[in-house]
């Protein structure tokens, strides 16, 4: 019997989950951060692609919680727990600074703020970050395989590597 593998695509300000043999990915992360929460034994995982650090800065009500680190990470955790995940760990990537520093515009440092916000959200939930590939100044495409718990990372003009 053959099984078909599906790749689940996660967009910007989106969060999805996946079970083996399927994999989950998000494309073209710049200053955004991709966070994978996974249960190694049960081979379930989820991926969140956040755009901004803090939902308290939203200037509109009823904002999409998956856009912000502080709201997306707890929701992702709950989605996984609802599917029976228990021993949950994290891997993360992204948060690059895409432009050279200029005069203090909002383009600047957003990557760093996103990284810090995700780390803080994970700390609050007592989730251990097993590995991460953050910062720098290059965009990333990332894909997680719940079968192996490996997160593969691709940058433009670079070979794929896993963490």
């Amino acid at each position: 019997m053959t099984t078909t593998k599906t790749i689940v695509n996660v967009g910007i300000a989106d969060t999805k989950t996946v079970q083996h043999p399927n994999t989950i990915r998000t494309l073209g992360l710049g200053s955004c951060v991709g966070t994978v929460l996974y249960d190694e034994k049960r081979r379930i995982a989820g991926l969140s692609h956040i755009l901004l650090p803090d939902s308290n800065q939203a200037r509109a009500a009823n904002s999409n919680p998956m856009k912000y680190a502080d709201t997306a990470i707890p929701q992702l955790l709950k989605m996984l727990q609802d599917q029976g995940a228990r021993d949950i760990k994290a891997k993360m990537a992204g948060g690059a600074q895409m432009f050279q520093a200029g005069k203090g515009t909002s383009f600047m440092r957003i990557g760093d703020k996103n990284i810090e916000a995700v780390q803080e959200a994970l700390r609050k939930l007592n989730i251990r970050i097993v590995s991460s590939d953050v910062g720098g100044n290059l965009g990333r495409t990332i894909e997680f395989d719940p079968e192996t718990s490996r997160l593969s990372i691709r940058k433009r003009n670079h070979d794929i590597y896993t963490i």
Partner: protein
Amino acid sequence: MDAFQLTTFQKDILKEIGNIGAGNAATSLSMLLGQKIDMMVPSVEIADFNEVIELVGGPEQPIVGLMFQIEGEITGVMAIVVEIDEAEYLVQKLTHNDQFRLSEQTNGTELEIAMSALSEIGNILTGSYLTALSDFTGMNLQPSVPHLGIDMAGAIMTLGLLEVSQVTDYAIIIDTEIRQEEENHENIKGNFLFIPDPESFQKLFAKLGWN
């Protein structure tokens, strides 16, 4: 505020902005390169973040993006997006160096010259676009310094959406494409994406008399 029910009238105003702005920018580029530049009919899109990225070829499409924050009576972001080989062609033309290649191997000095040439083109084009828009609306508009990025479209374009994303999950985008058709060369095309902040639309419509 529900800015996402644009009337046909409002859409036409926004298209006119694209026409006037990009038209003026195309003229500037044409003078700069000494070549004929055509402008396509602008489109006004109400797009979610993922759709914005699709407008410029999808999240992994390699692009050169020049991003300007716009300040003044209207605020927002102007993004000029071209493909890598098109940016290469622009640098070749401007520096009179047909051998120039924009790749990982491009060395420090050469890359610096290229970045500075592209930034200058961006300054001229955005300046032309905004001047025309200022004249049309009687509103004061100023661009920031250019932010230049060469990478996947998703990685670069999301930065243009940060302001908008504080308020909504959708952006109104005035997208105008300019093209240059020349023998011995593929079509050169670039996109101007003008992404006004949500608060700016009411001001714009009020100023132009269609509220």
